[in-house]
């Protein structure tokens, strides 16, 4: 490796490190204070959440089985999320949003946006 490529790479690495430290939880792609709903033992926990408009909610699957998050009205559809995968959605408008897992439709939950 010559010195011509070394410096830009170092700059990128340092920038990435600073970003990682600042972002807190970069893996989810959501703001660090984003409320989370865990999916575990075939349940959404919590199964009801009240948030302010403009908040991004992140669902995280902690089961060995894939799950999904699908809005009853078709507003969002996560697709299958495998173990440790997440899905985020930003709620812009006040209202009550029901969702279900389309693989295990017994699993249901509600987001209330003030």
């Amino acid at each position, binding site marked *: 490796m010559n010195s011509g490529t070394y410096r830009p790479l170092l700059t990128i690495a340092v920038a990435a490190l600073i970003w990682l430290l600042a972002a807190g939880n970069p893996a989810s792609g959501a703001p660090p204070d984003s409320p989370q709903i865990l999916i575990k033992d075939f349940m959404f926990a919590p199964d009801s959440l009240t948030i302010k408009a403009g908040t991004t909610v992140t669902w995280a699957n902690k089961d060995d089985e*894939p799950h999904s998050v699908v809005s009853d009205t078709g507003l969002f559809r996560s697709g299958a999320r495998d173990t440790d995968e997440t899905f985020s959605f930003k709620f812009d408008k006040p209202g009550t949003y029901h969702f279900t897992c389309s693989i295990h439709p017994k699993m249901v939950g509600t987001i209330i946006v003030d």
Partner: protein
Amino acid sequence: MPDDKLLQSRRNALKCMAYGGAGTLFVLAGGVFTPVDLATAADEKPGIARLGRPLFVQISDTHIGFNKEANPDVNGTLTQTIDIVNAMAVQPALIIHTGDITHLSRPAEFDQAQQMFSRLRTTELHTVPGEHDTQDPTVTEYFNRFGRASDNKGYYSFDHAGVHFVALINVLQFKPGGLGTLGDEQLAWVVADLKARTSSTPIVVFAHMPLWTIYEPWGWGTGDADQLMQPLRRFGSVTVLNGHIHQIVQKVEGNVTFHTARSTAYPQPLAGEGAGPAPLKVPADQLRGMLGVTSVSVVKHPSSMMMTDTTLA
């Protein structure tokens, strides 16, 4: 087979089932399943061959893409399944896959599965999707590959060797609480489809989720299946085949025999054991004894079907 021999076989079969080992042969006679130990049956191959001709093999719940502890090598167990089918002395006329071809409805999983199915010596493959096959946001990955038979509806029928086959889809809408649904449009179609058949025509119905309620809290059933059973009752021989629950459960109701197949990927718990129908982790040396295929033969045309469940062990 003489009666004493059959009795002996039944004893062996029960012994065999007690430790969950080798395959069991189910002979359907007078509406009652008679289990015969496959190990015994294997000793008398010519005799078994005379019992019927293999009509089709049912493969189910291959879950290509699954890679968790319950079976880190689902490609390996499907390969082994295909090897078993390819090694059958008389090849079945067709293969039926009762859904959950893939684990996450991803294109690469479907591609992998199709590539593996292309190794089957029997090239006629009929499929229905499972709920794991219809999770992509546009629900098109399954239909792009397997939708032609049904004109992308998911349900269709065909005839083979005097048997009428009906393929149904029950994973696109769910009843509140989680049971599968056939829906009014499909039910109207199946009523009309069956109307055109004589009562002596053997009927084979297949769908992914069980077409009778096995365990409602886990959604192991189909909410409007009663409306399907009504037009089926006049037929002399009806065989209903499903997957979804990764284990064998069966019942006989009049002339209708219900049977769910094992998965080729991983077992699931018995109904109600645990938080939900998650992959069941078993010791590695037990796994293959819980995976397998079902082969169905016509015994005494047109009235009897014989099912053989074979494990990978």
